[in-house]
């Protein structure tokens, strides 16, 4: 019989898993609404406005539609893999959130119990994130192949090639982050950037912004979002890998896509924007009372908005352009940047605040 402390730890862990899992399962509901509303605004339309106030209940209506639609498995499809693919697409992306720190430890009042706002703090966190996010492509590959449809197959092949190409650049960017922050653990990466926006990795001049851009572009490509949504190119592939999917399986695939978008936003925030760090440090005293989780969510929300904004702004790249960007620009650039980061780390490891202090300017 395990002791009561162990049971409490396990219970808290389970609770955290349930909360995060539930939140991620529900996240696509508001996100689809926001995305469609934003699409409408950008195209000078109204977006959904019939169901509920401002169309807020539209995603719920869509969900009911998805539930009651007929679940079709094509006759000549590989039915085992066809049914497995949505789960394979979804599970790894949910697993990323195991290591994501949402905020610093909080102490529950009255019982004085300390709770950390992450499920685990792995000492190989960043590699875990990269490894697990790489697995998500299997959903697309198997889904595309098992559908036994040429469009789906081509979508699956494209996603494979795209993932392989951009995984390299993304890993290099992660290496850059590890070099800048000096740790593989996501919690340590966040704490290394604490103390205002000048300490964030994105402002680790001159290499920080470049790493940020590389990670952003590679992340966009990894999660198959415009401008890199080759696997589901409506123009040339109908709907790509999910062309044969309907009803709940389709809903799971699009759920996976939305959660992937959230995960990339979260990773960008953790790696480059200081996670839960207050942007202005203690420059404005009143901001100290804002809970850190709020900053985290705010930054993630800003990135999600940015991704949606991007989607309705720029067109899709051509497939060969995609490969050119991946192999001929991103990878050489990131290799050179690794060298530069190493040099800077050895010879002049400074942040902007250090320089400011040197010239006698102390902000906080």
């Amino acid at each position, binding site marked *: 019989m395990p002791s009561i402390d162990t049971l409490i730890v396990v219970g808290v862990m389970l609770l955290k898993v349930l909360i995060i899992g539930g939140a991620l399962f529900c996240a696509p509901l508001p996100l689809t609404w926001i995305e469609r509303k934003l699409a409408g605004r950008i195209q000078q339309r109204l977006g959904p406005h019939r169901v509920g106030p401002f169309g807020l209940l539209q995603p719920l209506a869509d969900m009911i539609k998805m539930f009651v639609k007929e679940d079709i498995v094509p006759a000549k499809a*590989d039915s085992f893999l066809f049914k497995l693919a949505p789960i394979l697409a979804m599970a790894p992306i949910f697993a990323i959130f195991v290591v994501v720190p949402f905020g610093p430890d909080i102490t529950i009042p009255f019982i004085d119990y300390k709770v950390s706002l992450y499920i685990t703090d792995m000492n*190989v966190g960043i590699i*875990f994130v990269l*490894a697990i996010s790489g697995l998500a492509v*299997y959903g697309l590959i198997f889904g595309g*192949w*098992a559908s036994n449809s040429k469009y789906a*197959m081509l979508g699956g092949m494209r996603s494979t090639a795209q993932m392989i190409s951009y995984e390299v650049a993304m890993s290099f960017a992660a290496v850059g982050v590890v070099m800048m922050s000096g740790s593989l653990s996501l919690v340590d990466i966040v704490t290394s950037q604490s103390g205002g926006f000048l300490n964030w990795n994105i402002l680790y001049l001159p290499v920080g912004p470049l790493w940020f851009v590389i990670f952003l572009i590679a992340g966009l490509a990894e999660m198959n979002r415009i401008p890199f949504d080759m696997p589901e190119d409506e123009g040339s592939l109908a709907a790509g890998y999910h062309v044969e999917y309907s009803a709940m399986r389709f809903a799971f695939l699009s759920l996976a896509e939305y959660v992937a978008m959230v995960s990339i936003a979260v990773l960008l925030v953790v790696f480059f924007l200081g996670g839960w760090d207050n942007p202005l440090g203690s420059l404005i005293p009143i901001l100290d009372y804002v809970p850190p989780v709020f900053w985290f969510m705010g930054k993630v929300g800003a990135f999600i908005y940015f991704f949606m904004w991007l989607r309705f702004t720029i067109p899709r790249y051509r497939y060969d352009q995609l490969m050119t960007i991946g192999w001929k620009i991103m990878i050489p650039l990131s290799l050179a940047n690794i060298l530069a980061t190493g040099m800077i780390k050895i010879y002049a490891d400074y942040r902007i605040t250090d320089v400011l202090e040197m010239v006698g300017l102390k902000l906080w």
Partner: protein
Amino acid sequence: MEQLFFIGFAFMAVVAAVGVISLRNPVHGALSLIVCLLQVAAIFVLLRSPFLAVVQVFIYVGAVMVLFLFAVMVVDLRRVELESPFNARGIFAYILAPIAVIEIFAVIFVSKSFDAFTTVATLPTKIETLARVLFTEYLFPFEIVSVLLLVAMVAAIVMTLKKGRS
């Protein structure tokens, strides 16, 4: 408890490995291989070596198997499934496979380096330690492996170039 997990993972790994060689559909075979590799990664975690586990997933499951599937998917499956898996070259396999099996068992039972307790204790669990060892004590093998990989990469690129083009 740990023993129980180990038996579970090991059993799954063996079942998946058998699946890899017995399933007729190459894509299903690849899926079993993925499962097998994931189980092995889980066993690495049980051996207090999360770094190795994650790298295993990252390299093998995340990259190698994706490339593998990329190649398998373009294969004409109907022809592969009709073809007999046993052909004239099978005779070599019948000779070589038992030798390999005997070899593996011999290494396991004879060699001292498979003594589980000593190995686990000396394994570097922290990544810093691992990196330090890799870049000091084992720097030469590390460099050799890097150069080998570079050569392989260049060779692969050269092989894809068409003849007669500079």
